[in-house]
Structure formats: C-alpha cells, structure tokens
C-alpha cells in the first residue's frame, strides 16, 4: 500500500509539472513583454530576463508611445465602436434567439441553417462587396470620422450575430417554460415575458455573448484597417499595427505599445473570466 501511495504521488507530481509547464508558456511571454516595457532600450537585446530594477528601469517607453501615437483617441474610437457593436448585437441576437427557440413556424429550420452557414464565412470573403456597398451608401471612404466608424460597426454586427444567436438559443432553451406560463396567466404579453422573464433568467449567457462580441470587435484588425484609414479614425488595434511598422528597432516602444493595447483586455478578462468560460462551454458547444 505504501509503495502504491508513493507511485500515485509521483505521477500526480508529473501531472502537475506538465500542467504548470503549459501554464508558464501562456503566461511567461506576457510577463517578459511587461518587464521589458520598463527596461532601458539598449538592455532589452542583451539582458532581457532580469527584473528591470535600478538603472535599468525606465518609464520612457510609455512616455514615447503615448506622445508619438494618439492612444487616447484610439481608445475612445475603439470603445465607441466595440461598445456600440456589443449593445446592438445583444439586443438583436437576444430577440432573434428568443423567437427562434419559442416559436414553431414554417421556415424555422431554414433560418437556423442560415445562421449556422453564416458562421462559416470568413470576413475576407465578404468585405470587398461590403466596402463597395458602403461606398455607394456614402458611409465608407468619406474621411468623416463618425461615418467611418459606422462603416466598421455595421459589418461587425452582422459578423457577430450568428455566433451570439447560437449561444443564446442554447440558454433560452434551458429556461423552464413554467415561468413564462405563469407570467402569461398574469396577463403579460410576449414582449413583457421576454424582458421580465427571459433576460433575467439568461443573464449570464448575455454576459458571455457581450464579452466575446466586445473582444472580437476590439481585436479585429482586418475590418479596422479596411475602413479606418485616416489618423483621427484609428482604433486601438490598427494603431498598434501602425506602430509596429514604424517602430523599426525601438523594441522598448514595441513592448510598451503591446502592453497598452493588452491592458484593457486583461482587465476585462480577469474581472469576468468566470462568465467567459462557463458561458461559452454551456451554450456554444452542445453536442
């Protein structure tokens, strides 16, 4: 028995070692970048593993990044774009998911397959016609900051709707119908049922969908670089891409810019990580 115990504790030790090793590969690169964003320029190439203390410490990389590029404006643009996309996606996807789950009607199966199909289109298979269409509508390519932002928002909403509807449908299905029945007996109509019963009951899945939509929109370089071409229009991911092509050998500047872009995402992730993983696994990957 004693040897058996010893054997299990050794194998448990190995298991933990492997798990921790992979955890390090995901965390350490970020720690390395953060440390080096505080290090004096020249030292990054010779001594990047130590803590940047004493002489090696500097805030210059951040000051340069902030002064050279318009981070404040880019943050504002990003939050306006991604915030709007998130709010509209939640409203529309919630309504559609509710309608598709609770109503039986002809064509329901077809609409469902259209949503599944819509998830397969890569952005670059739709973006050129969208661009042409928005030029004709007078939204894209005008050099007007607000119109250009609208030009990004519209396709991003469509791109996020399908995934969101699928996730929300999974959740609304699991809301017990008895709640709706008693509300109906109390004289509520379907819209009141939706707002007073369904939304509160599926709150956590709405949170999941909101987080994913926000992050995808915030991180989406492709659509941003397409529609936001003038300096005052730049959103945060596009700005980072621009910095990376201009920074040349200023590696400290690159490191600090990466940190500035990642920090909002990191904060959102840490604050809401429970929702992110729980909601995703419960809704999207059923069967």
């Amino acid at each position, binding site marked *: 028995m004693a040897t058996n115990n010893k054997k299990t504790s050794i194998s448990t030790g190995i298991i933990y070692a492997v798990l921790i090793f992979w955890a390090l590969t995901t965390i350490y*690169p970020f720690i390395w970048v953060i440390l080096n964003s505080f290090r004096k320029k020249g030292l990054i190439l010779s001594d990047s593993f130590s803590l940047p203390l004493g002489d090696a410490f500097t805030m210059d990389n951040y000051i340069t990044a902030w002064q050279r590029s318009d981070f404040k404006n880019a943050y504002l643009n990003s939050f306006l774009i991604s915030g709007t996309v998130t709010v509209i996606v939640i409203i529309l996807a919630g309504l559609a998911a509710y309608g598709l789950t609770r109503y039986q009607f002809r064509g329901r199966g077809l609409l469902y397959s259209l949503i599944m199909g819509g998830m397969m289109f890569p952005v670059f*298979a739709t973006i050129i016609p969208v661009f042409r269409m928005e030029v004709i509508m007078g939204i894209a390519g005008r050099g007007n900051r607000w119109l250009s932002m609208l030009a990004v928002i519209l396709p991003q909403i469509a791109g996020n709707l399908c995934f969101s509807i699928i996730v929300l449908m999974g959740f609304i299905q699991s809301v017990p119908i008895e709640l709706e029945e008693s509300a109906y007996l109390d004289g509520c109509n379907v819209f009141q049922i939706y707002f007073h019963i369904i939304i509160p009951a599926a709150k956590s899945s709405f949170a999941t969908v909101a987080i994913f939509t926000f992050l995808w929109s915030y991180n989406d370089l492709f659509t941003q670089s397409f529609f936001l071409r003038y300096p005052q229009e730049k959103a945060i991911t596009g700005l980072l891409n621009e910095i990376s092509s201009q920074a040349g050998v200023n590696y400290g500047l690159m490191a600090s810019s990466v940190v500035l872009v990642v920090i909002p995402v990191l904060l959102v992730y840490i604050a809401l990580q429970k929702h992110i993983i729980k909601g995703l696994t419960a809704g999207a990957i059923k069967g």
Partner: protein
Amino acid sequence: MKSMIYKKKSPLIVFLVPAFLFIFVFLYYPFFQNIINTFLSIGGLGRAAEGVNTPWYENYARLFTDPYMRTAMKNTAILIVCTVIFQVGIALILALLVDNVKHGQQFFRTVYFFPIVISATALGLMFNLIFLYKGGMINQLLLKLGLLNYEVKTNGKMIVEWLDWKDKAHFMPTMFMPVMWQYVGFYFVIIVTGINNIPSDLYEAAALDGADGWKKTRYITLPLLRNVLRTCLVLAITGALKVFDLPWVMFGAGMPENQGWLTGTYMYDQTFNRMNVDYGSTIAVFIVVLGIILSNAANRLIKPLEDF
C-alpha cells in the same frame, strides 16, 4: 399552454426581422456578390467591374497554375496537419491530465484560455520580439545555455552567430508555433467540458470492475469523447484555412522569399496590395469550398457516436 403563448405569430416580425436583415445585407448578399466578382475583371477596391473575364473562368484556371498559390496550399496543408496533431493533441492531453488533479482546475482553464482573447496584432508583435534575430528572447536563452556558435574574426574577436528564426530553414515552426499555441486553450476548454459531461456512474461501474487510471481513460473517456473530438477536428481544419492575422503581422507578404505564403495571407496580399480584387475573391471562395470539403471528409472519416 406553450402553444397558447406563442400561437400568435405577429410578434415574430419584431423578433426576427432586425437580426436577419443584418445577416442578409452584410453576410449573405456580400458573399454571393463575392462569388460573382470572381468572374469579373475588377481593378480596384471601390471600383465597378470592367466586364467579364476572358475566358470567364480565368481566375479559377489561374489558381492551379499560380506557383505562389501552390506554395500557399502546401504550407496551409502542413499547417492543417500540425494543428490537428499538436493543437488538438496537446489540448486533449492537458484536458485528460487536468481531469486527474484536485486543485487548480479553474486556474488552469483561465490561464490556458487567456491567449485567445488577445488580439493577433499584439501577439504577433510579442512573438516578433521573442523570435528577434539579434538578441530576441529565444536567441538570448540559447546564448545563455551556450547553444549558439561563435564566429572567430581575424582580430581575435568572437562574434555570436545568431539563429535567424525567420529564414528559409526555420520560418515554418516560427510561423506555426504561435498560431497553434494561441488556440490550444480553446480546444482544451471544449474537451474538458466533454469530459465533465460523461456520466459519473460509468466511472463508478468501471471502478467496481477494477479499472483505474489509464484504463479508465482508455476504455471510457476516450471513446466517449469521440463526438467532441470530431467537433474539434472540424473547427481545427476550418480555422487553419482561415489563419491570417498572426502570420501577417509576423511575416508580412510571403516572407521569406515568397516561401511563406498561406492561403489567407496570399488572398489578402492579392486583394489589398496588388489590387487583383477578382483574383483575391476567387481565393476566398476557394478557401470556403475547401473548408466545406475537408470538414465533410473529416466528419465522414470519424463516425459519430449515436447512443451518447
């Protein structure tokens, strides 16, 4: 009762029309327009077509004669094989291991999933610093471990021979590792959920029969994960075909020496840098078609488990 609440269909208009309007106008219409574009001659992004190509299938013929397209196909095929083996493989191993430990399950999930929420632009820049030629993280580490060679100059000075991670001999792992690394956590979370969905009485019954540890994994967990692994396989294949931003930030247009194209990056370059809009659209259609064919093939290859 349910039918009574939801018998009147008129509210459906409010529920469905706005969302499907977006889906039709900004997904389906552009997608079909894009297919039409592949037969037309289009010289610039916002421009109207100048007419039909001669012959009309010119772009599709070009797909099969274009040497860079062949390179892109080859690289993407290798990437697909690597993603399936390493991305899904590592995720499966980690998920099985996590299932066997008592502490820190939540921690490992959170940490493994983290790279997925970071933009590929930021990750690409980070990996550029890590794989940097002179004094990048990996080369510094190799230097510290004494694994790099020195070149002795005539004046007696020793010069480090840094490894160029982006040259012809090394670019493939440098390009593929970050792509695979980023999404391991995604498949990990899917597989862990699959494991948690396996009814625990199956394990109890197996324990009574004397199965433990590896035997439980081999005879219960793995067979019952079949459907989940099938989903992962399809997602990995279609995902690998679409890979664009991370390689684009790290390597740009086909570096090194036009050896580094992927279908995604080649499509982007043709459309946006070379203004071959119609040819770019053709590559995009090709990617979608290939995705459908390959994921169907994968689905046929692994038969679903009916009774679970």
